[in-house]
């Protein structure tokens, strides 16, 4: 592990092509729409991914606002239950597949080549293809809302037979859009694996890579392992709906519980797909702003690997109430509890990194610190949910909603925001506006906790998830959650404004934008020119 600077040779950079015989490799850039449609440049594709995911974040966020507005007080006021179910379902699908996942792919596209000293991703054309599949998939998915019978209304987990025999006619389009998004994920994952394994700068060993590359490498293997399982499950749905099979139809000899096993065999690793890259981001930011190297690099790598392996052995903890045999309940309870160990190792590592460091509180650090605290709260409720007997009370309540939102919003999303603040100087050449960033941070922290913390109480008091109206004893919790939700949603507009300002101007950032930053990306100028590392840097690793 670590400090890689200075390089032996000054690295040649160019915005299009340079004099060193590289012109043939890079034809003159195209302009207008074609530039973006046909680009094979990892930075441009990275930006496309990030802009796409931000767009989806606001669309999915709008759906969440509809849900929170309806739940603002008891009774049905704004929407019909039918539409409410479509909103909860679409919110989940869009946020998981359209916002969180693509934003991590965007960050990987931008940063992995820069962090390992590669000129681009290993498979640039495939990269273009895997991005452009996404707008197709999500246009299709969103269009189902306008079809007769409405869009998906069976929850983002789409349990059969509600999603097959009892589903709206648009479900076939929903299945197709998941297939397309899944292909995009698999291709993106292949690309990342190929890049990390083949394109590291000469001399950079696996154990020299920044943790973001490590966590993404492991995430990519998870994606390749589980996206085909999802594809298989939705194909079986497709057959049940359109071709008269009975995979999940009990009346035809099928098994509705099989669907849940298939879904969660995909779904649980999927949860880690949405958090492992966040671990990598936070493991870069905390050392930078503590001015101290990560406490245990190797144990972080091993912990990530352990979490990934365990993620394949815990899926049925989502199904404790379906009536599994006692031995299965016990097995999945024990394996689920085990996950707390490597996750704890990570949290302890971050804290130990800060201990006796020299800490400053720039915006990326603020979000990373909030991540550590809030993700840990989500981890605690996860530990509680692992206790199978207690899960009989927690399952399918707002306690679960609180849990996974704590891991995904103040967790994964905060890490993505931290990453954006961390790398915006590298992307745009300007520091983000400090004042605005601090406002964004504090409003987000207050909003997100006001939204999701009361949900713990609502769930424990007995409120099930996915209901459009509720008994009166849950009214206060929901009022708080709705107010918090509106605050959090509105404060994300500040983030958009901040990005626009940052792209247009602001304080100029040097190559090494943060004093304590050590990785290779800080050796290229800010903003990073279109083509970097055309000649591989010579990487010098510190003797252990």
């Amino acid at each position, binding site marked *: 592990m670590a400090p890689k600077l200075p390089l032996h040779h000054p690295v040649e950079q160019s915005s299009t092509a340079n004099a060193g015989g590289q012109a043939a490799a890079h034809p003159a850039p195209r302009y207008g729409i074609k530039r973006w449609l046909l680009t094979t440049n990892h930075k441009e594709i990275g930006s496309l991914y990030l802009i796409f995911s931000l767009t989806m974040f606001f669309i999915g966020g709008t759906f969440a606002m509809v849900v929170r507005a309806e739940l603002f007080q008891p009774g049905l006021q704004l929407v019909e239950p039918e539409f409410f179910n479509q909103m909860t379902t679409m919110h989940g699908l869009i946020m998981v597949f359209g916002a969180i996942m693509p934003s991590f792919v965007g960050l990987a596209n931008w940063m992995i080549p820069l962090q390992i000293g590669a000129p681009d991703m290993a498979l640039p054309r495939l990269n273009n293809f895997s991005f452009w599949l996404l707008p197709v998939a999500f246009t299709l998915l969103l269009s189902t809302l306008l079809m007769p019978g409405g869009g998906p209304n*069976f929850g983002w987990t789409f349990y059969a037979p509600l999603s097959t025999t009892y589903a709206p006619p648009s479900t076939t389009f929903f299945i197709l859009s998941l297939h397309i998004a899944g292909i995009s994920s698999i291709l993106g994952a292949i690309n990342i694996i190929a890049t990390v394994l083949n394109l590291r700068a000469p001399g950079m060993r696996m154990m020299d890579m920044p943790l973001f590359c490590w966590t993404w490498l492991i995430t990519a293997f998870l994606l390749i392992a589980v996206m085909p399982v999802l594809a298989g499950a939705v194909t079986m749905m497709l057959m049940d709906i359109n071709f008269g099979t009975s995979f999940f139809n009990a009346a035809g000899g099928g098994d509705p519980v099989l669907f849940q096993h298939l879904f969660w065999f995909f779904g649980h690793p999927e949860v880690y797909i949405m958090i492992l890259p966040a671990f990598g981001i936070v493991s870069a930011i905390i050392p930078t702003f503590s001015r101290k190297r990560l*406490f245990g690099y*190797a144990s972080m790598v091993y912990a990530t690997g352990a979490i990934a392996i365990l993620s394949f052995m815990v899926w049925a903890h989502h199904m404790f109430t379906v009536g599994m045999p006692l031995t299965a309940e016990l097995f999945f309870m024990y394996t689920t509890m085990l996950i707390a160990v490597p996750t704890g190792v990570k949290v302890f590592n971050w804290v130990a990194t800060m201990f006796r460091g020299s800490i400053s509180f720039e915006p990326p650090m603020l979000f990373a*610190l909030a991540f550590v605290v809030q993700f840990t709260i989500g981890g*605690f409720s996860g530990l509680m949910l692992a206790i199978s*007997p*207690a899960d009989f009370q927690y399952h399918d309540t707002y306690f679960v909603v609180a849990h996974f939102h704590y891991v995904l919003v103040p967790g994964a999303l905060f890490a993505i925001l931290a990453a954006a603040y961390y790398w915006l100087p590298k992307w745009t050449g300007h520091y983000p506006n400090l004042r605005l960033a601090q406002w964004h941070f504090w409003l987000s922290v207050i909003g997100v906790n006001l939204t999701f913390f009361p949900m713990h109480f609502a769930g424990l008091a007995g409120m099930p998830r996915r*209901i459009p109206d509720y008994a009166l*004893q849950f009214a206060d919790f929901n009022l708080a959650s709705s107010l918090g939700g509106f605050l959090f949603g509105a404060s994300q507009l500040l983030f958009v404004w901040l990005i626009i300002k940052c792209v247009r101007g602001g304080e100029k950032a040097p190559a090494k934008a943060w004093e304590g930053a050590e990785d290779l990306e800080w050796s290229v100028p800010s903003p990073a020119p279109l083509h970097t590392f055309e000649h591989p840097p010579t990487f010098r690793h510190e003797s252990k």
Partner: protein
Amino acid sequence: MRTCIVWIAGCLVVPLTTTLAMANGWNMPVGVTDVSREIHSLHMTIFWICVVIGVLVFGVMFYSLFRFRHSKGVKASHFHEHTLVEVIWTAIPLLILVGMAVPATATLKKMYDPADADLDVMIIGQQWRWRYEYLGEDVAFTSNLGTPRETVRGEGERGEHYLREVDEPLVLPVDRKVRFLMTSDDVIHSWWVPDLAVKQDTIPGFVNENWVRINEPGVYRGQCAELCGIDHGFMPIVVHAMEEEAFDEWLAERKEAAAQEASGVDREWGLEELMARGEESYNAVCASCHQPDGGGNAPAFPALAGNQALMEERERHVETVINGVSGAAMPAFRNTLSPVEIAAVITYERNAWGNETGDVIQPSDIAERLAD
């Protein structure tokens, strides 16, 4: 000074969380069965473990944030990797987890032992109501949302048990072991009453088991926990736990009423009384999909009012209600409604909302068909 801040923070956090954790209506109910008490104590144990770990970890973290600030000119030290520390912080959580797994396993084993029950109750989930059958007692009924739809839309006062009231509660005895056999007629539902600590999915094609032995008489409320379609939020459960003698009396009364209902099958029924009976059943069972005015909810749920096919094809209408429509949302009612109710509902649908066919369907005919 810094130690002070940590202490103050700690002193604030612990009582605050305690108060919240203990406050009524903010926490998991202790419940009224031995199992629910054990589950509650597991819940509190793991909660306090989390609080202690949280105070320690966040304590060190916030101490570091206050103590080692760049702005105060603190220079970073350069230590990293310490095998002993890393082994300790792997081993201790592991030990805590083992300590937690032991009581959890014991409780789970108890929950998985429905043997030697005094009473078997079949619980059937249906979109969007619960059906209860007292096995071997010839007593069965469905339990529908008791809150009027208009109240949901904002007309009239919302009572104390808004959305948690039913037309007919499940009645159970205290101090007897009651075994639940749970299944579904359509999609997956989940039968959940927090005070009984029973949450079990009802799955079409499966029969799940669970059990309770209620310690205190009372009324315990819950609702469906698994998304099951449009009216998932309107599928409450009310359990009325009675003293044993009162329960036996209630059961005997219900048995007699059921016998009377069965004898009603044989006599000739008139249009008027069938319409009255049919309206009652239709509103309880059919209206959630086909709407009280028969207007339906296209495309899944066709309109019945003014439906030409329905009015012309009497035979198909009867067949549809009895056996449902394979591959569609329409369930079979042969096992959930009595012959009288089926005849009344069909008669009602063929004569209400301007569907003036004048057809009268006799319960005896339905009973004959069901016997085939």
